[in-house]
């Protein structure tokens, strides 16, 4: 697969814990308007659209009905991927490389604040015979995973808590982020236990927002855009939604998704070839287990490296400079969109006071949250393959 695809436009709203003044329609319209303006395209020039949503998050039994209008996609090829934004990005890329369309749009939306029963919602994604009857919190699945990860790698709760402190501090200087805060380690360690070892502040709170990306093939990218950001590699993988036969001590899905993305990108040594990363951190320990699964550091080292400041904005390998899910907010299917957005802004030099110096290749990785084992990875670069 040798065709090149670039992101030529991106638009987003700010991420906020609630957005009571707009409906999902206006929220998406704002992000799409910015993205099309950024790319210099009109909706009529766009060949296909991919929306990402899940019915019960949006609160419709067929949520995809409501996807076309606010994207300017009426009577256009548009379909929904009930998956993470990065999976949607992968689908959009397929539409470009297949030759179906020169310009394709991907949309992600979160109105998480409108969903009032989120714990019930996640329970509803679990096995009705082998988990639901216990009536235990869906966070327990993450709590058990955290305990096994700590057991196998020697990672400590303190190391996990450092991720929270880092990411929420990073979010303070990101005007898009919803949940910036200056915390101390003890604030996290002594927050209320939820599914111990997991405590309240280890768990990302939710946020609303929308992100729209415009993708184009090489010809269009070069004519439309002075600063295209190239999708060098992309991959996604699912282990299993069953609890009994998944890997509990490592994020195996992320390792497989990354393998695909690195192979496509021709990356042999990720830690050396990627400059920074925006990685799913819906739970504090997930940043660490994902870093290891992504081969950005050796297994068992992510916690210790975090203690040394390695993943700070000023460190050797900045991780979640935007604030991540912990600092920007967990936005269901949009999580990957937030990460892609922040990578694009960094690579374009538009990340404001959070801008990293001299970055050329970034990685965004998203996990679909409890109880799934689905991860998606994209490697973005200011240079094509």
């Amino acid at each position, binding site marked *: 697969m040798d065709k090149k695809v670039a992101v030529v436009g991106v638009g987003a709203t700010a991420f906020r814990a609630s957005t009571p003044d707009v409906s999902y329609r206006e929220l998406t319209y704002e992000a799409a308007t910015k993205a099309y303006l950024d790319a210099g395209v009109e909706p009529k020039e766009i060949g296909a659209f991919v929306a990402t949503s899940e019915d019960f998050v949006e609160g419709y*039994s067929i949520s*995809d*009905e409501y996807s076309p209008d606010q994207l300017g996609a009426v009577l256009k090829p548009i379909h929904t991927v009930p998956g993470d934004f990065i999976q949607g990005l992968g689908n959009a890329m397929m539409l470009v490389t297949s030759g179906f369309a020169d310009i394709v749009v991907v949309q992600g939306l979160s109105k998480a604040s409108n969903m009032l029963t989120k714990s019930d919602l996640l329970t509803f994604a679990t096995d009705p015979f082998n988990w639901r009857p216990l009536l235990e919190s869906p966070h327990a699945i993450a709590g058990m995973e955290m305990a096994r990860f700590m057991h196998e790698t020697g990672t400590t709760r303190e190391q996990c808590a450092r991720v929270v402190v880092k990411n929420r501090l990073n979010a303070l200087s990101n005007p898009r982020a919803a949940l910036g805060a200056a915390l101390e380690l003890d604030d996290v360690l002594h927050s209320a236990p939820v599914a111990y070892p997991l405590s309240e502040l280890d768990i990302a709170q939710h946020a609303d927002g929308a992100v729209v990306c415009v993708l184009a093939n090489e010809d269009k990218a070069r004519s439309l855009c002075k600063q295209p950001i190239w999708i060098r590699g992309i991959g996604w993988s*699912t282990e299993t939604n069953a609890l009994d036969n998944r890997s509990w001590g490592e994020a195996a899905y992320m390792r497989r998704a990354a393998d695909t993305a690195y192979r496509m990108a021709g990356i042999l040594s990720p830690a050396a070839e990627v400059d920074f990363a925006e990685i799913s951190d819906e739970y504090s320990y997930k940043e660490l287990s994902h870093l290891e699964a992504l081969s950005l550091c050796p297994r068992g080292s992510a916690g210790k490296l975090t203690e040394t400041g390695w993943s700070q904005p000023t460190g050797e390998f900045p991780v979640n400079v935007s604030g991540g899910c912990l600092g920007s907010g967990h936005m269901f299917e949009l999580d990957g969109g937030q990460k892609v957005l922040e990578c694009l802004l960094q690579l374009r030099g538009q990340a404001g006071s959070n801008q990293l110096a001299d970055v050329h290749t970034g990685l965004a990785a998203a996990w679909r949250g409890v109880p799934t084992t689905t991860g998606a990875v994209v490697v973005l670069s200011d240079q094509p393959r």
Partner: protein
Amino acid sequence: MGYRRVAVVGAGITKFTRFAKETNGELSYEAARMALDSCEMNLSQIDCVSIGTAPDAFDGFHLNGETLAEGSGGFNKPVMRNYVGGGTGVMSAIHGWQHVASGMFDTCLVIAEEKMSSAFPHPAGAFLTIFDHTTEQPVMPTLLWIFAIEMQRFMHAHGYTKEDIAKVAVKNKRNALDHPCAQLGAEITVDDVLNSEIMAHPVNRLDVSPTSDGAVALVFAAEHVARRVTEKPVWMDGVGWALDTAYWCTRDLYYPDYVEVAAKKAYEMAGIKEPAKEIHIAEPYDPFTYKELHHLEGLQLAPRGGSVQMLLDGVTQRDGNLPVCPSGGLLGVGNPIAAAGLMKVAEIFWQLRGEAGKRQVPGNPTCGLAQAWGDLMQVGTVVVMRT
């Protein structure tokens, strides 16, 4: 524009039934296993999986794509779900095409599954909540209403009668008698349809497809793989899909623009200039009797206002000039939403390979079309396939 050639090389299907004992994962497995067996492939030869399932509200799982992944052969594989409501079945075939045509994958296992019986006693709550939550749901609408409303407009625009439209049910249920998976194959008369209980006038009980459980699977492959695994690949020569606005009350429902747009894209890709002549066999979506006719017009396979005449002339019978729904369609085989759409694609696959058994249409067809519809009278999904 030259596209990478993509073929369907294998197909599998479960029986369709109202209440299945099997879980949704087991249904997916049965279809997927049969599809792999049909082309003597094993799971290690499958690069990726595409899952089609309509509302999560039917199977009863938030993130139903994740729930289905393992039974669909997705363990440790790239799995992506596609979703356009009722149009999902044919969209799944398009999604399989996208995966392989992109050059990113050489093979893709496509599964469409629905287990509507989990929603007990009836998936009514799912049908209520397809409507706009604020401006429409408060009047407590049901899915039947929107169909009956559209059928009324369609009949009004063209002067069609219920008697004539009822012949679609007669044809499709009879065709389904020859389908081993069929839920509602039957020999019925026009009077049976007209005298069946009124649901929402002009829709009677026998105008409506049933609620069903079932799954269908197809194996998609790039040309070099297809040539290796089968002597009879069926090529995906054209694909098209489109959604109209969600403001469905602002459109004239008598004509499905969204089907026309989708079909024209598929025809353009397949190089089809005169669809009514070049397409030998069609499986348009028939969840309700009139929908088959409505879609034939949108597909440009019948003139606007001319579909009923084709039906009356016997053109759409299995031995007619343009056999339509030779499978028995949703009215006869059943309607596990996404699976029903992919069943139509599978039917074209078997018909073009001459493997449709008692359902086989005469004349060695070489070009067929499958189409599905979905959402608020809104989605068109179309594939054109050739030997």
